[in-house]
């Protein structure tokens, strides 16, 4: 595990759709003759993330893809991938990928057609320290967001999703989260809400296989699973 965690270049390899879904753990004794079963949860679970239709338009994106493939190195390596949050968090107008893109005052861009960019300011802090394997946390709402239930956030590339609030005390919200806290989040730590990331590894060794079509235009799918081994090793160390 390298010390620095590589982040997926989300501005260049932006998938057409992202599927970031929790995988719960339940056990049961099987179905009864009537078709019912009683299930018991044995863990909150882990994240399964898929990128659908990542466009590989040009040689630069191809090279980025190959570089990432080296970083993953099959299922052993890990990369932090962003899971966009604009499905659950209302971002201000004029934002793209969690960034404000601003032209000059006469609406002209820079000479290379790029804009001034600035991350969207959404401030959410951890109100009370969250220890490993906690499943209920207290978040403090800063600004740029009006509701903390059902959103995703990340801290140090560990991704979480909030549930129904059990207590709202002023700007402090107490909510259950999925999954259990992977690594300690200190009090007053700023949480990433605009563009949360999740440390993942590939779902299979050959997940990043890519074709090279004659038209030089390919859209590829890639599936990830959360790299829980990283958090386990971190906790034991």
């Amino acid at each position, binding site marked *: 595990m390298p010390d620095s965690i590589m982040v997926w270049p989300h501005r260049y390899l932006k998938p057409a759709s992202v599927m970031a879904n929790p995988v719960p753990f339940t056990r049961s004794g099987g179905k009864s003759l009537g078709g019912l079963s009683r299930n018991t949860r044995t*863990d909150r679970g882990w994240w399964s993330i898929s990128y659908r239709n990542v466009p590989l338009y040009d040689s630069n994106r191809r090279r980025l893809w190959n570089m990432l493939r080296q970083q993953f190195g099959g299922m052993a390596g890990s990369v932090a991938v962003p899971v966009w949050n604009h499905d659950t968090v209302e971002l201000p107008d004029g934002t793209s990928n969690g960034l404000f893109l601003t032209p000059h005052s006469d609406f002209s861009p820079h000479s290379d057609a790029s804009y001034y960019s600035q991350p969207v300011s959404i401030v959410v802090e951890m109100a009370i320290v969250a220890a490993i394997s906690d499943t209920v946390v207290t978040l403090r709402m800063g600004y740029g967001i009006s509701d903390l239930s059902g959103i995703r956030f990340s801290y140090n590339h560990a991704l979480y999703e909030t549930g129904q609030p059990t207590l709202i005390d002023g700007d402090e919200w107490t909510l259950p989260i999925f999954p259990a806290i992977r690594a300690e989040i200190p009090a007053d730590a700023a949480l990433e809400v605009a563009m949360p990331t999740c440390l993942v590894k590939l779902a299979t060794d050959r997940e990043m296989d890519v074709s090279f079509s004659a038209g030089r235009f390919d859209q590829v799918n890639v599936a990830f699973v959360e790299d829980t081994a990283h958090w386990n090793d971190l906790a034991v160390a």
Partner: protein
Amino acid sequence: MSSGRSIRILIQIDWVDVAETVSRLWDGSGPYIDADLNVWVGAAALSGITGVDMAINGEAVVLNIELSGVNSTNSDLAWLSFTNNEIIGSIFRILIQTCDDYDQPVGDPEVKFTGTIDNIIFHDKAAGDDSTSILIVEVVNRFTLRRIINGSVLSDTDQKARAAILNPAGNPDRFAERVPLMLDKTVSWPQWN
């Protein structure tokens, strides 16, 4: 607020030869820290855990637990124990921790199964593109005796030892005494299916 719908399955291995070394695993994804601040490492899958039930019914000769997602520390401990020829006798426990509706532990974990490690198999296999490395822990407890041949033979010595435990104040149980045929007889234990 315990609904009984959330539990954690914990596995604790006390390695016999390496002083004060305990492997703590649990059947979950991430790390879990209990009230005593012990870190339990999430092992992604534990196949063969249904074998626990069989062992309780006296059906399993040995309980094979396949540990997947074991980190290098635990694997090294197992290997160290293995190479020192001290693997036999390491204590293996399965514990159940009940949790509340928010999956937070309630009370202390209960020990549901205790056995001693009989063997450890390091199993690497490749099939097609897929290669897996599995650590199989073979665990035995007293039920193991029911299924092996000489364990199911009742000898006079066994019967007297048993009587001394069951009825310490009474006379030794003598029904198997002076029965030479007993050497060749097999008394089958009941099996509940």
